[in-house]
C-alpha cells in the first residue's frame, strides 16, 4: 500500500517556466489537498478537492492550478514560475472530513 505518492522529489525551475507536480493516492480517499511549507512557517493550503471533478481554492492559490479528473490523481500546475514559489510542496488525502490526513513525502521546488 503506497499511500500518497508525489513526484518529482526535487526540481529546479527557471523563472517563467511551468511544471506539474504529480500526486497519486491508492487509498480511495475522496479528499485531497495541496500544501506548501516555507522555511520556519506552517503548512499553507493551496488548493483542495472533495471529490473527482470538484476543486476549490485554499489560502494561497495564486500562481497555481489544479484538476481532479479521477479519485486517485490530484496534480498541481505552476504556469509561470516565480521565486516566491520556492517551497516544499505536500500533497495529502483523507477518507472523510473528520479524519487525519495522509501526507506524501513532498516535492522540494526551487525557482531561480
Amino acid at each position, binding site marked *: 500500500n503506497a499511500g500518497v505518492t508525489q513526484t518529482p522529489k526535487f526540481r529546479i525551475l527557471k523563472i517563467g517556466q511551468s511544471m506539474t507536480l504529480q500526486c497519486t493516492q491508492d487509498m480511495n480517499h475522496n479528499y485531497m489537498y495541496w500544501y506548501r511549507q516555507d522555511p*520556519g512557517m*506552517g503548512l499553507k*493550503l493551496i488548493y*483542495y478537492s472533495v471529490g473527482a471533478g470538484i476543486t*476549490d481554492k485554499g489560502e494561497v492559490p495564486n500562481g497555481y492550478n489544479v484538476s481532479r479528473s479521477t479519485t486517485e490523481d490530484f496534480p498541481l500546475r505552476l504556469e509561470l514560475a516565480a521565486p516566491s514559489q520556492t517551497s516544499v510542496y505536500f500533497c495529502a488525502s483523507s477518507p472523510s472530513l473528520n479524519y487525519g*490526513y495522509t501526507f506524501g*513525502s*513532498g516535492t522540494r521546488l526551487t525557482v531561480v
Partner: protein
Amino acid sequence: DQQVKQNSPSLSVQEGRISILNCDYTNSMFDYFLWYKKYPAEGPTFLISISSIKDKNEDGRFTVFLNKSAKHLSLHIVPSQPGDSAVYFCAASARVDSSYKLIFGSGTRLLVRP
C-alpha cells in the same frame, strides 16, 4: 493573521522526561484539533487528535489537552525518547467550514537528548 500559533520554535528535553508542546488558536469556531509529527525529508504523519467536546485524549505516551476557554492545547509526551525528535505541527479545523480544511501552526522542533 495566524489562526493557529506555536510560539516556541524549538524545545530540548532529556530522554525519559516529559515534553510539553503548546499551541494557541484564535478562531472560536475551531472544533477539531490534531497534532502531526514530521521528520526531515518526509511528509507530516498524524499523531493524535481531539474533538472540542473533550478536554483530554490519550494514546500511549502521547496525551493532548484542550482548554477551550483559553483557546489553548498542548501535547504531552511521557517519557520522551530520542526517536521523538522531530518537528511537531498543531492543526485545527472548523465544522462550519464544510470542506474541513486544516489550518496549521508553524511547528515546534523537539530535540530529545539521550
